[in-house]
């Protein structure tokens, strides 16, 4: 039997009184807390519960953040995600390793946390199409307005594009997920160079059109190597040519 100790000298609680035992600190589900959905049409209730749970954990550890975004595959329909991506907008650098561990302990899900200052986020959004894509489908703790002024920096895009070259020579070595990530990087840059507005649905649609395979087929590695590489190389070379042209044009203006 468990026992509860109360002070001998007390006001109230006379001997023989009936009392109710209640936990003083209760876990608050905080149903009033509203989240802001951007590009997310629906989300499974269990995922929403996890998000609230994690936000509560982050709230306990950090108080001076400007916003928190939840992005990535966790927001896609179903349960085929590897981790939850969190983007914490905060002025000061923080060590988020402890929070990451707490989240994993509490939810059993891997957490991938990126911390950025609002200045870094703005710069990323301006010059990196993958950032735009990331925030085109997200859940935010606080309301935000995405005002992006696209600034094509060919040298930065050259650097980003180089990562996708890996797929061309290492097709057999890469997993479906790695191929998808590299292909998505390529297509996002390709579309950005064509001055398209980047968002997840549009990019996924274009991946299918340009590479002739659905996202799931690429992720599952069910790929006709010859056909896929032919299309992939064509887009890679076109993008690289545009970038070189841009660099050349830029250098003439300097």
């Amino acid at each position, binding site marked *: 039997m468990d026992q509860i100790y109360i002070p001998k000298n007390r006001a109230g609680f006379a001997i023989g009184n009936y009392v109710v035992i209640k936990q003083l600190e209760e876990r608050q589900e905080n149903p009033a807390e509203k989240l802001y959905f951007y590009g997310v049409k629906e989300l499974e209730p269990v995922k929403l519960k996890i998000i609230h749970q994690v936000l509560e954990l982050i709230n306990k550890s950090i108080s001076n953040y400007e916003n928190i975004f939840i992005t990535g595959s966790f927001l896609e329909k179903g349960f085929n995600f590897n981790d939850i991506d969190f983007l914490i907008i905060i002025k000061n650098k923080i060590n988020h390793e402890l929070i990451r561990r707490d989240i994993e302990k509490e939810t059993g899900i891997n957490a*991938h946390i*990126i911390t*950025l200052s609002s200045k*870094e*986020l703005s*710069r*990323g959004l301006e*010059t*990196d199409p*993958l*950032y735009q894509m*990331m925030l085109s489908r997200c859940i935010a703790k606080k309301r935000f307005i995405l005002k992006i002024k696209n600034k094509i*920096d060919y*040298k*930065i895009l*050259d*650097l*980003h594009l*180089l*990562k996708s*070259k*890996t797929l061309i*020579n*290492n097709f057999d*070595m*890469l997993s479906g997920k*790695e191929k998808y*990530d*590299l292909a998505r*990087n390529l297509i996002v840059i390709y579309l950005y160079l064509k001055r398209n507005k980047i968002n997840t649905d549009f990019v996924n649609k274009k991946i299918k059109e340009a590479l002739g395979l659905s996202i799931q087929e690429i992720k599952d590695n069910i790929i006709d190597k010859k056909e896929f590489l032919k299309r992939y190389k064509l887009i890679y070379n076109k993008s690289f040519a545009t970038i*070189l*042209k841009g*660099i*050349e044009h*830029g*250098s*003439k203006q*300097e």
Partner: protein
Amino acid sequence: MVQNRNKLINLFIGNVSNAVVHEILERAVSKEVMADRYRKELVTSLEIAKNYREKINPINRSLPDKDVAYIKEKIIARVKAEIMTRISKGYKNIDLNLIDSLTDKALRDSKIK
């Protein structure tokens, strides 16, 4: 078997070259790439090169000097070609002196040397 080893060495060379080019370009635009943490999740050429290295004999010690010289020479040639393409288009701030030292570092890190 020899053919397979040569193929693995060539794949290794391709990936290290890509990694060295990336490092040099990154240094050339270092101030502007502060917000690239999201893309760092992508599999890198150096990681792949290390996977190939694990399949090239001898696995646990350096490769013979002749092989090391061949690999280094090929990597430097490929990196130079990639970098020169960009320089010819007006790309500035590229430090060509980095090619040798970064190649050496990559070879040491992957236990080729």
